[in-house]
Structures are given as structure tokens and as C-alpha cells.
């Protein structure tokens, strides 16, 4: 799994700035688990797009800002997160599983059957 920097699909490319969410990726024999910190993104504003070759995580930050308030300090500038990855062919993207809780996305993508290491039973003859 490698990060994609430039080939963001044209229809999702916008001029507004995006934040790159930090991620953790853990790989084991049966698949990968991706964690991404997306604070401020409600569940209905999170989009995880997976196809055979790529994974794109996109989230829109929702503030629910009361009107007529002055920002004294505003560190959050970009209103959305986006990060794309190219996926290895050994991952089975049809069987992803995503959980989103407290602003953290957990995404599990299993490996296809033939990519998993197999234990070969040796029988003593």
C-alpha cells in the first residue's frame, strides 16, 4: 500500500485546501488495518472509497458554528480531509470493514485468499 499524491480523481479535485489526516497502518498475515484521525467529521460527512487499486478517505469537517461569533484563535483552516493510497493487488477490496468512532476511522481490508500464508500439514507416513 503506497500513498498517492497526485492522481486524485478529477471529480473530487477542488481548489480548496485539504488537510492530510495522520494514519496508522498495521499489516498482518490476513490483511491490513488502517486508522485515520479525522476529528470534527460527522459520520454522514465521511466518504471511504475503495476500488481494486485505490483507497480514498475523505471527510468534511462540520463545526456547527453559531453565527455572529468572532474567532479569537482559529487553527483549523481547511474544511476537509483527504488522503489517497494505492492498494496492493493482494488486498481483497470487496471485503472491507469500516468503523468510525470519536473521530477515528478504523478500516480493515483483508488479503485475498491466495495471498495469505498457508499452513501445510505434514503427515508422517
Amino acid at each position: 500500500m503506497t500513498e498517492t499524491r497526485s492522481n486524485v480523481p478529477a471529480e473530487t479535485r477542488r481548489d480548496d485546501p485539504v488537510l492530510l489526516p495522520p494514519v496508522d497502518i498495521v499489516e498482518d498475515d490476513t490483511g491490513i488495518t488502517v486508522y485515520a484521525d479525522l476529528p470534527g467529521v460527522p459520520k454522514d460527512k465521511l466518504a471511504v472509497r475503495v476500488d481494486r487499486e485505490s483507497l480514498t478517505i475523505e471527510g468534511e469537517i462540520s463545526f456547527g458554528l453559531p453565527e455572529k461569533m468572532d474567532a479569537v484563535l482559529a487553527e483549523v483552516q481547511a474544511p476537509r480531509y483527504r488522503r489517497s493510497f494505492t492498494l496492493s493487488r493482494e488486498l481483497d477490496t470487496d471485503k472491507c470493514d469500516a468503523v468510525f468512532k470519536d473521530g477515528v476511522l478504523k478500516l480493515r481490508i483483508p488479503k485475498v485468499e491466495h495471498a495469505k500464508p498457508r499452513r501445510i500439514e505434514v503427515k508422517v507416513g
Partner: protein
Amino acid sequence: MSSAIDTLKRTFSDVWESVETGWQRVRAQAADALTRFRRGTRRTEPAHVQGDLPAPVWGLLASDVIEDDRRVIVRVEVPGMSRDDLDLQVIGDALVVSGEKRYESDDVHGQWRVRQCAYGAFRRMIPLPVPVRADEAKATCRDGVLRVELPKREPGAPRAFRLKVK
């Protein structure tokens, strides 16, 4: 030949200097959001994940302070944390947010491939623009964002003083 290399070196050092200056400026601007994570009181390493990647000790927890004539609202990003992981105090004219981000105690096994999210305990001090009634403050935590609403001790529009430059 050697002069070409010297020029190259000089160019490189010029570039490096400007990168460094830029970085220092970014760092100064974001210094408040850059939060150090220490080893927490609870588990800070997932038990079954191996690999050489070090755990990040700095995390970016962006915050906003906004106010109207009645209240000051502070928002801090706290991804992966819920109400029970956070502690809030008003000390002097600052809101102190302490918390701890834990690895979920699940059965993740394997090797680190990318490691960018900071875990552990942190403490953030957020200066408040005016005195507040801490005992009437309300806090909520949703989608990884903490929101604290603090009524002003003396209601009034945000004050601004115009200074004359002589």
C-alpha cells in the same frame, strides 16, 4: 570543477536556510496546536504489533477560541478520545485540557507499516480572552472534538483597542 561544487553547496545551504526559516515560522504559528504526548498511565503500545517504527510523540490538536457577548467557546480536536478520557480545569485565565488517548484494547496483531498518530497523555493550556464563570461552564465531546462553553463573568462584546503608531 571544485567551484561548481562550491556553488552547488552554497545554493544548497541557501535553500536549506530558507526552508529552515519557513519551518520555524510554521512552527511558531502552530506551536499551540503541536502537542506533546507522554507515556500515559494506561497502555500506550498495542500489545501485539511489532516493528521498528517509533511512536510519534507530537500530535497536532488544533483548537479554536471564539466568543460572542455572553460566552467564550473553546474547541479542541481530541480524536479517539471520549468524555471519560478528558479532564478540564480553568486555572487563572486559561482552560487546561488534559487527556489520554489509548489504543483500543482489541486484538490487532501484525507489523507497523505507517505510524503517524500520537497516543498517550497530553496537556494543553488554552488562554481565555476574558474572565469566565468556570462553575457554569458546559462541555461536550462529539466526533473527536471537545467543545467547552464558558459564560463570561462580565458580558460584553469582544473588546478591541486601537493603538496609534507614532
